[in-house]
């Protein structure tokens, strides 16, 4: 079981839920299971360029990596905009 934490706008889009506990073998599985998967991943299933994903505090770039039980996945929006 992994825990996925969403930033504010994604939590709003997820009906107000900020924390998800998911059964997921890989990071990609976890992201795909989110109700906001289409905002995190593009139509090719790739993480959008300004979305950063951290697993247990480390920037994760390999979506196929296995998720350890109890892994804490945090989605972060890159600092951008105006």
């Amino acid at each position, binding site marked *: 079981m992994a825990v996925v934490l969403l930033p*504010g*706008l*994604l939590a*709003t*889009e997820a009906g107000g839920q900020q924390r998800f506990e998911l059964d997921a073998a890989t990071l990609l599985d976890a992201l795909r299971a989110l109700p*906001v998967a*289409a*905002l*995190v991943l*593009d*139509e*090719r299933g790739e993480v*959008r360029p*300004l*979305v950063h994903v951290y697993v247990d505090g480390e920037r994760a770039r390999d979506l196929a990596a296995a998720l350890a039980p109890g892994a804490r996945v945090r989605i972060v*929006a*890159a600092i*951008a*905009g105006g």
Partner: protein
Amino acid sequence: MGVQLLVGTRKGLFIIRGDDERRSFEVEGPFLKGWTINHAVSDPRDGALYACSNNWVYGGTVHRSDDGGATWERSEGLGLPEESELKLASTWHLEPGHASQPGTLWLGGEPAVLFRSDDSGATWKVNEAVLEHETRDRWEPGAGGLITHSITLDREDAKRLWIGISAAGVFRTTDGGASWEPANQGTEACFLPEDRFPAVGQCVHKVLSHPGRPGRLWQQNHCGVYRSDDSGESWERLDRNGLPSGFGFGLALDPSDPDTAFVIPEESAENRVTCDARIGIYRTTDAGASWKLIVAQEPAWAAVLREGMGFDDEAVYAGTQSGFLYALRDGQVVEAARHLPPILSVEAATL
């Protein structure tokens, strides 16, 4: 009857309600905080609200509300097929479909794509004839990107509609979107060094068909204001008879009079600000033979974007990038809102 204005801004959607006289307005919002609303519209068939919502991190999508903006649902599955080697960059304009096709919607976006939904936006299907158009390699992006920004219907013929793509031009279908033909004869591509009247490549800024006269189209282009009386087969240029400039973005019509139209010219492509240090709304009542100035505000150095003008049976509305919204009725201008975020779109629906 009053009016409901859906005002899309760089920072959310505002709903602004005006009274019967279009003199008093109340601002509600913002809705969809965190989203840039390129366009929002109320579906006249069922009252649903739709927003082309975009975020620089999370991409472009569509939100729908069935309760006046209290709650929203987001479309799933918006994207481009892998074989196209393209990805959806943003959503720009949503047009409710023909009255005979409840649930049908059209959606324009970047890069020069068109989608259709037949289930009120729950799912979308890309229009392959636009995606694979034989002239696509001659389309060039404008300042806003390579975008499908205008979608306008023939009220009598559900299979006939027009789209505007910057900078590709106007395209027409007569078979419900199965095929599209360029409709740019007579419109100039004044920015080209030679061959300024190509089949495609024109920088249309906004195209509207008149709801009461099938076949009459109005167009604000990078290179002039135009009218067509033959469904876009040919265009007549109208901006050398009272307009200070042919350059501009916004365009509004009068549903009850096909000879009336409104534009807000800007100084030039190089200096995109309203002409003569004022916000001037120019109105023609003779199909573009002459134009008269109505000053909304001066001094002012403003800009009204391509979706920045709306209209209903009573009035015309214009929202500026500086966050001011004006209503024009019977030649009189009222400030309807001020200090909003930069206004990207205005759509009016009579209540």
